[in-house]
């Protein structure tokens, strides 16, 4: 391959991977059947990228207003995260289309981060930090349904901004609803029918020349090569191509073994078994709070 051709190929691969994290939306493939985008709680705690950006901006401005009222200057930060956080399926389910465009999003995310770094934190006076994140005297710990202990101070502008935007109960409703979604996900990943489906998928991957014992394995294999490849554009291109190839085989195997249907069925059974009436009420409150915040953000 000539140097010019190699550069063009690299550019094409990199552009596709970089753009994918910015543009993938709710996917309905016109090329063959699409896998189901199964998410816990019927996707109640999931979000589109556009909604996440809108709410993030509102929350940042609420933090800035709170800090200003306390005589402190806070500069609202732009949301730098790509769309991959919202668009990556938590179970690792892939569609053929997404796999072909972005692979697992690993090299693409690396390229995105290279062009859009996280803003550097500045150092501030202790009084500024106390105004932002609160004081120890007002620190509380929430124990969430998935076992996570989350501690924060109720008197900081961060906590205040969240209640101002979403409602007085948001600092408990949001982490609890997310904890419920995680509890469901963790239970699905231990479900016998789910594990049996993963074994079928694993056999398919072996036959396709990409042996993997679980859905994390191919991602970790790509990621383990990233640090070394990052310093060499040719190696990065090769890794990007390998990632796309593996992810396409992965998505195809998921389709062939009906993995997303197995996840859907396992999740349905788990939710029926685990979720109480009070849990469902919490999720409903989460959805209502979020909907209200979104409505005010677009008003």
């Amino acid at each position, binding site marked *: 391959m000539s140097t010019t051709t190699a550069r063009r190929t690299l550019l094409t691969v990199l552009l596709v991977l970089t753009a994918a994290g910015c543009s993938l939306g709710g996917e309905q493939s016109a090329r063959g059947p699409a896998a189901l985008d199964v998410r816990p709680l019927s996707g109640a705690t999931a979000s589109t990228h556009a909604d996440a950006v809108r709410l993030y901006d509102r929350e940042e401005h609420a933090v800035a207003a709170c800090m200003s009222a306390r005589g402190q200057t806070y500069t609202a930060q732009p949301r730098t995260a790509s769309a991959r956080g919202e668009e990556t399926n938590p179970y690792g389910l892939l569609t053929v289309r997404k796999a072909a465009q972005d692979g697992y999003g690993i090299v693409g*995310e690396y390229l995105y981060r290279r062009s859009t770094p996280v803003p550097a934190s500045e150092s501030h006076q202790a009084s500024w930090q106390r105004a932002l994140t*609160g004081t120890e005297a007002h620190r*509380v710990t929430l*124990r969430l349904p998935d076992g996570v202990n*989350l501690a*924060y101070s109720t008197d900081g502008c961060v906590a205040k901004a969240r209640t101002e935007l979403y409602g007085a109960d948001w600092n408990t409703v949001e*982490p*609890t609803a997310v904890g419920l979604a995680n509890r469901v996900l963790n239970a699905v990943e231990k479900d016998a029918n789910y594990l049996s489906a993963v074994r079928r998928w694993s056999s398919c991957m072996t036959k396709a020349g990409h042996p993997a014992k679980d859905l994390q394995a191919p991602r970790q294999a790509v990621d383990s090569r990233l640090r070394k490849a990052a310093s060499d554009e040719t190696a990065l291109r090769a890794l990007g191509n390998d990632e796309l190839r593996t992810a396409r085989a992965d998505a195809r195997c998921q389709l062939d073994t009906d993995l997303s249907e197995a996840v859907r069925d396992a999740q349905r059974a788990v939710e029926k078994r685990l979720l109480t009436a009070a849990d469902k009420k*919490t999720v409903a409150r989460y959805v209502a709070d979020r909907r209200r915040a979104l409505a005010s953000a677009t008003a």
Partner: protein
Amino acid sequence: MKRILTKAGIALGSVALATTGAFITAAPASAALSDCPSGGLCAYLGVNGSGTPGVVYGDNTNLLQYNKFNNAESLYNNGSSCNVRIYSGTGYTGSSYILAKGYYNGSLANTVYWHNVASNDWCV
């Protein structure tokens, strides 16, 4: 004043918040959290921020390559400008939650994140 509030917090801690199912208690202060540099997500090999933290300032699709995240028992977001989403899977998969600015997890025991903080995404 601090003692009174702590007592109030403990009293509240004996009752689950009926509406959400979350339990709330007053959290103990941890001197070790002050070892976390401003702007960093810190992972500790012990609970309650004990030990010297491992720190990341940027996004990572694979934190498991870093010993302190691969073996994390507590976490602290000392970011002054961004919240951070934590994942139990690499490449933003698995369980996840947002650790807002100044929030922390005193213990990851009995969670999927115990010795397994696998990826992170800032400014979400």
